[in-house]
């Protein structure tokens, strides 16, 4: 574990807290983070780039007479840190007071994140990987030289990236908080670009990500990316109108994120949410349950504490259509006069509906016909109304089978109406994603073309 924060680093964090108090802060929190990432990228079967990144920085949150400021620096010598904190305190003293600025109550903070290793997200193999091995891994699945293509397509380019990283974060505050999180990540990515006989280009990509090297699936990325590029050949325009929409698990989080944003305390406090006054109310169909699976051991994205050090909790965000939780940090709890919860969803998970065991093919078969969305191209939503409009990439399907790719289509609607038309949620969660959102199906969705 030679690459994790060392004792001297930890002493630096402790020293920062001490200086903050000595120089006039009432309370303070610091978060010291070290991250290392190595990446090898290949282009058309040859090494194209090799990068090595090592960063260490400290975030410092200062509270002085009900005044608050947040600061960060990567200049970490004791002398530089001291002068930075003095400067930071001078800034804080000049902002306006706000009695809601507080550290979290110690009873709410995580007591079970002392070593950083509790969630089994650290793979010791990380420490022994040599550069040569990274290069071999990045090169070994290349098919560029062997791929001749067909009469229908030829391969234009193949990009592959292998990377591994370590992040080690220690959070301390002047109420005695000590929380640590250590995580390794191994990532593999492939992007294949082909050209059809008419000169049209299509790119397909695929990736895998895991905290444990042995679980990294490097063999399927290149073939999957190539297949996804080939599948796009021959897109056709179809008429706009109402269709059943199936969203594959590779992009279905796009329609869940705005719901979570609308439940955030900052959005609620600023009246900038289409889920105002929704706590405890049924806003969605009974089939929708979203839980926060934040403490699953060995699963990337899990955390035992949020950035304030508050302990995460596995519970429901939306249960059978009823909003069960706003994300309220300590500051927003004061502003909204509500009980604090957690600052955000850590690893939200949409539960299967109406039954377990459904994957993309089964859901398409059940829906019989509609549009399968495999990617979103831009778009946005209105945070106060929930109206949205997104560009999509995908396929027309009939009798549960793909007919052809569609081109230049948009999906438009309102999130409350969209979710009220939920037909199915699978349990085919994509590994390596922070939001666990399976294949989803909705009826009567407006598509423009």
């Amino acid at each position, binding site marked *: 574990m030679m690459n994790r924060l060392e004792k001297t680093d930890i002493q630096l964090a402790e020293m920062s807290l001490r200086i903050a108090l000595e120089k006039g802060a009432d309370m303070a929190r610091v978060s010291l983070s070290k991250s290392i990432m190595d990446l090898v990228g290949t282009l058309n079967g*040859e*090494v*194209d*780039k*090799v*990068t*090595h*990144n*090592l960063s*260490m920085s400290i975030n410092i949150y200062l509270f002085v007479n009900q005044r608050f*400021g*947040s*600061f*960060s*620096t*990567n*200049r970490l010598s004791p002398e530089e840190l001291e002068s930075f904190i003095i*400067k*930071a305190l*001078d*800034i804080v003293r*000049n*902002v*306006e*007071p*706000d009695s809601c*600025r507080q550290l979290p109550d110690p009873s709410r903070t995580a007591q079970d994140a002392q070593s950083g290793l509790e969630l089994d997200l650290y793979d010791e193999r990380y420490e022994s990987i040599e*550069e040569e091995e990274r290069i071999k891994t990045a090169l070994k699945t290349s098919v560029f030289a062997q791929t001749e293509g067909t009469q229908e397509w030829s391969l*234009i*380019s193949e990009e592959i990236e292998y990377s591994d990283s370590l992040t080690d974060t220690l959070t301390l505050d002047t109420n005695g908080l000590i929380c640590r999180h250590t995580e390794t990540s191994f990532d593999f990515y492939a992007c294949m*670009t082909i*050209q059809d006989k008419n000169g049209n*280009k299509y*790119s397909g990509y695929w990736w895998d990500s895991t905290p444990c090297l042995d679980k990294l699936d490097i063999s399927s990325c290149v073939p999957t990316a190539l297949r996804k590029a080939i599948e*796009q050949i021959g897109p056709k325009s179809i008429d706009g109108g109402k269709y059943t929409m199936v969203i594959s698990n590779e992009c279905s989080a796009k329609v869940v994120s705005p719901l979570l944003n609308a439940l955030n305390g900052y959005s609620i406090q*600023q*009246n*900038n949410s289409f889920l105002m006054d929704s706590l405890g109310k049924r806003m969605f169909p009974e089939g929708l349950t979203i839980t926060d699976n934040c403490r699953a051991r060995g699963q990337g994205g899990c955390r035992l504490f949020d950035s304030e050090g508050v302990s995460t909790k596995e519970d429901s965000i939306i249960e059978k259509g009823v909003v069960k939780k706003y994300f309220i940090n300590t500051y927003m709890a004061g502003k909204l006069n509500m009980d604090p919860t957690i600052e955000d969803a850590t690893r939200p998970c949409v539960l299967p509906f109406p039954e377990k065991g459904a994957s993309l093919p089964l859901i398409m078969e059940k829906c019989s016909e509609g549009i399968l969305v495999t990617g979103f*191209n*831009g*778009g*946005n*939503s*209105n945070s*106060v*109304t929930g*109206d*949205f*409009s*997104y*560009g999509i*990439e995908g396929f027309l399907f009939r009798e549960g089978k793909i007919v052809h790719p569609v*081109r*230049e289509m*948009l999906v*438009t609607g309102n999130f409350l109406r969209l979710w009220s038309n939920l037909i199915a949620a699978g349990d085919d969660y994509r590994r390596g994603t922070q939001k666990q959102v399976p294949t989803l199906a909705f009826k009567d969705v*407006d*598509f*423009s*073309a």
Partner: protein
Amino acid sequence: MINTEKYYFDTFQVTLDMLESLIAVAMKDGGDYSDLYFENSQMGTMILRDGEVNSAGLHTLYGVGIRVLKGDKTGYAYSESTAWPAMVQAARSAAGIAMAVKRDSIQSASSEAKYHGRPNPAADRYPEKLSWQQCGMADYVTFLKKIDTAVRAKDTRVIKVMASLSYQISDILMFNSLGELKYETRPLGSLSISAIFKQGDRVENNTCGKSLRSGREMLSDNLIEELACEIVKGLDQRFEARRPKGGEMCVVMGAGASGILLHEAMGHAFEADCNRKGQSIFSDKMGKRVCKKGINIIDDATIHGLRGSTNFDDEGVPGQRTCMVEDGVLCSYLHDRISARYYGVPPTGNGRRESFQCMPIPRMRSTYMENGEASAQDIIASVKKGIFVDNFSNGQVDIGVGDFTFYVKSGYLIENGKLTMPIKDTNIIGNGPQALADIEMVANDLIIDEGTWICGKEQQNVPVSCGIPTVLIKKLTIGGE
């Protein structure tokens, strides 16, 4: 702002001899080009919420990025310390690229310096007349509170105002294996306002902002008035607005922020890295007609004070004006040093990066279309049925297929040559080459928007600007219900 050479050497605690020695370490394993990018950035932030400036921050980023090229292959590493041992370690990591690539397949780089001389303060495109850092916090608190008052005074329907003021001052020092030494200080000030409005039981929001490469002098009473007017502009229409009926239709894009069309529909596809890899829909269109005669599309680093302007790019290449489309014909991609070498052309000064922690890649700067001869009124009057749009939030493009989208916050239907029903919250999709070919009229009212535009690519964000005169596009697809 351009300080003395000594100022930058002192800031980074280096000497010219040290830079030369560090380059020698980086090149030791057989690299044929190497460069160093030193950065010392200070970013200040202040936020007004509920009438109070109750949060502020300061963020420091310091270090050096070291790049080694072997042909068009890249090795990159950085150090957050400019102590000699730390920099040498990073240089050795970056040097590894030379060992990792097949020597016989690589075309060596030119070893001739092209950009001689030291930076000229008289040619600086973003002098900081009033220092951001020397103004006290109290000054900024007063300014932000004036914004709150001004916005609330504009309309009784305002229920929330949030304003965010930030500045960044970056000292940059660049040196490379050709012996080229460049340095400068880049100021960037940004002011963003968002407001929530209530009418009866309906709620609406709006945002606006201004960002310039400028000192504290950009903050003025005029700016407060300008942004306060902008954020409530069209509010009556916004409460009335509906979604248009979706489908293909004629689109008039108003002058200014509609430059997002150029950024998404063609700008990204003109960046030469994706063309070098054969991935862009424009890869085989150099020298060919891509739109009507008379249309010129520019990517420009030379306009004083714009967010996308540069004295030098992040490879030390002088900022310049690059004509991408001249009289309707594609005449230049946007190059960094790697792609320029690949295509055998001079770099265009588009090698940019988010910070020293990232390697430079081809990026846009200020992208705009030059004026045509029509008037905006004539263009709108020529449309029997279509939409007019001029307020956007974001966009995206699929480089290979060429499909682009941008999100329209507000606009109007055009019926029989007149603006009629207000519309809002709709996405527009089109195909880059087709949309270019479908530009039928260009007005003479070019505006370069000074909003807080951020361009994201390969996990790197850089500030950009965009602009356009009013244009008529024969057809794009509009999202609707």
